[in-house]
């Protein structure tokens, strides 16, 4: 009898494990049980999982919103070497130089100082007509807004 009373008194001291208590309380309250990571590796692995899921979600959103057209980036034509738009820009620069070479050399009447800075103004001429005739024509036919060149003015003064 004494033994029975002793055993019953011991039962008062019995307590459930802490983890069991937490899980049970979670189940009853409905918040779920969260087991906190303990080791560094667990912390690292959880962070990695979280990061990977975020990245995958982002990629999915990007593909859905942006469509699949961005795959064109990998096309060989997108390689700068054969891209028609950049080829066109470079070809145009050559055309401009050819035009400058073809330009007749107009006597550089320096109305503005930058005019002589341009290679366009000093581009040499080929097959220029008789200078005297050309100057006379220029002086007589030039509009009031056109500047008169040095040689045109000299021609006028020699008359």
């Amino acid at each position, binding site marked *: 009898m004494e033994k029975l009373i002793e055993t019953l008194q011991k039962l008062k001291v019995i307590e459930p494990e802490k983890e069991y208590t937490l899980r049970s309380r979670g189940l009853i309250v409905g918040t779920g049980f969260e087991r906190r990571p303990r080791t560094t590796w667990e912390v690292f692995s959880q962070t990695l999982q979280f990061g990977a899921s975020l990245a995958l979600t982002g990629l999915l959103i990007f593909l859905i919103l942006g469509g699949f057209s961005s795959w*064109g980036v990998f*096309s*060989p*034509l*997108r*390689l*700068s*070497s*054969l*891209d*028609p738009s950049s*080829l066109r820009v*470079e*070809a145009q*620069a*050559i*055309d401009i*130089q*050819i035009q*400058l*070479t*073809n330009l007749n*050399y107009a*006597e*550089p*009447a*320096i*109305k503005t*100082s930058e005019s*002589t*800075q341009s*290679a366009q103004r*000093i*581009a*040499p*001429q*080929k097959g220029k007509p008789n*200078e005297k005739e050309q100057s006379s024509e220029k002086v007589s036919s030039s509009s*009031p807004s056109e*500047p*008169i060149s*040095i*040689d*045109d*003015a*000299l*021609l*006028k*003064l*020699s*008359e």
Partner: protein
Amino acid sequence: MIAKRIGVGLFLGAVLFSPYFTFASAPPNCDFRGQLDTLRAVRDNSLDYLQEVKTELVSRKSLLANIANCSIEEALSLKSRLQSLPLKEERLKIVQDQLAGEIDRVVSYYENQKLKIQDLGFRGTQDFSRSLKDWRAANYSPLTDRVGTFILWNDNQKLFQTTQNRLAQIGQTVRIFKLVDNEEIQDLFQAAQNNFREAQEANQKVRESFERTGSFENSLTLMKSSLESLAKTYQMFFDLSELVRKILPY
């Protein structure tokens, strides 16, 4: 009569104290239309003969002084453009210095001529103008042609470098995508290479013509030919681009 004299006096005063006539260092106005109009106005003015000749002479000298200043500025602008070329090779720098020296001699000539203007008579201004115009046609104009050719050629070198880089890049692309096996692509790439080689050869000849002292003969024709070959190279690039688009559509 008094009003007429005052008018002539004011006109002469305006001309005499104008910056052109006083050889001031202010930048010259190189549009001569206004001064030529003034000269015409003197002729149209109903002054007596002697006054008309005197007034016209003053106007003529003023205009000649302005022309001399503008000619100096024109030559100095050309020299400044020439000297702004970023040259690295010693041989080309020598050509640049030679041309700059020739421009300096032109400026000295103008400076000397400017000193003569004040002593000219009416007939003298006519002869002086004719002589200066002829001198410019015989000396200054050929010099500007040579300087212009040299500047244009130097500008072209950037285009040659760009084309060379582009050719190398396309060569890599053709190899990476194993397009060399395609006969048409191979032909186009070969044609592009040949055109570029021709352009380089013509370009080299222009350089040699500069380096031979004073000889710019045919340099403009050669330069044009080199640029045309360069343009043909790009035509091949466009054809290649089109063909690769058909083979590797995206």
